């Protein structure tokens, strides 16, 4: 006997829906900083920097810490390429 809400899930069963939801939460709560995610943050940082000289100063002071983060993100990318990904 079908449930009346089944059609909203496009034929997927609870296991599949559950998997998708878990993947969504994994992404949402991930603390990892892959390159793609970092690139998406750039516009926000630029916007902040443009808001005033004190904003620029604080952001630039932080810049040295970003170096290793970017390197690590690109390092991960490199590994993926080696693995044929």
């Amino acid at each position, binding site marked *: 006997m079908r449930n009346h809400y089944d059609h909203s899930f496009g034929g997927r069963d609870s296991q599949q829906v559950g998997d998708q939801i878990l993947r969504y939460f994994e992404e*949402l*709560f991930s*603390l990892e900083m892959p390159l793609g995610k970092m690139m998406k943050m750039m516009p926000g*940082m630029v916007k*902040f920097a443009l808001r005033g000289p004190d*904003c620029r*100063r*604080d*952001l630039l*002071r*932080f810049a040295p*810490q970003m170096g290793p*983060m970017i390197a690590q993100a690109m390092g991960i990318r490199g590994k993926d390429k080696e693995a044929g990904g």
Partner: protein
Amino acid sequence: MKAQAVRKGLVEKIPVPERMFFFRSCVASNKYPGIETGAVDALKILGVEMVETDDQTCCGGFVTFANVAAPTASMPAVARNLSLAEERDLDVCVVCNGCWTFLNEFAHFMNGNQEVKKAINMMLGMMGRSFKGTSGVYHVAELFYRLKDCLTEKVAGSRPLKGLRVATHYGCHYLNSGKYTAIDDPFYPTFIEELVEIMGGTNVWYEANRECCGTGFSQVINNKEVSYDHTEMKLDSLQAVDPDFTVVICPYCFTQLDRMQQQLHYRRGKEYDLPVVHISQLVGLALGVPTKRLAFDAHMGGRAKLGQVLKHFD
């Protein structure tokens, strides 16, 4: 007053500093400023000076639990607001149940999860800030209770609320989310009643005392009828005992109980005459803060009775 479940151990842990960071409430600032002036002035008389800054923004609780801001977005904002108090080496005083719950829960979460805290500090680093988690967040109501000896001293002999019948409404978030961290029992709280008695007032019980105010957080926006039903039940119960003041400890409850009286009159023909007051305004009145300072002209509900009651003071 019969039994008391107030957690004396927790009360004693609340600090009594000379200065505290005053966390402005969105609802209070833009709808009921008397809540803020009352808190600042009353605490000053009781020996605690409030420090404020225009750098402080909304706690973020509303947009978070409305599911518009994910926790990943609002947690850094909490860390940022608290860092303002930390850099001044101050603890935080809030006037709202929602702010208290939200700031405490998220700060507690960050303090218990070093990886998350590190990631958030990375973001704060970009704006030249850092969050250590060292500032405590305290509700003005629990601060008043902590300072009750000083309050008793200040009102000694004068019993400023004498003759006034006061109904209490603790609201939900302070006592419920604070199941183990608030200073009183969620189902049988008495600390506000104790303060009312210290100030000379008479507590009146009503059946819906521990009921939620009815906003239901977003229900008042998304499912209005349900919110009206619940608040109607609450206000009916209050009107049946006809208190001079209904004292609340949260601006959101305040807004609901204050403004719904007119809405229910307009929509359902109900008649209510219930002045609502925040604990900070009530303590302010008892300590002699002028009524002009407490912004009673912002109040919508129970204006007829409010006029009468305020004559008691000026």
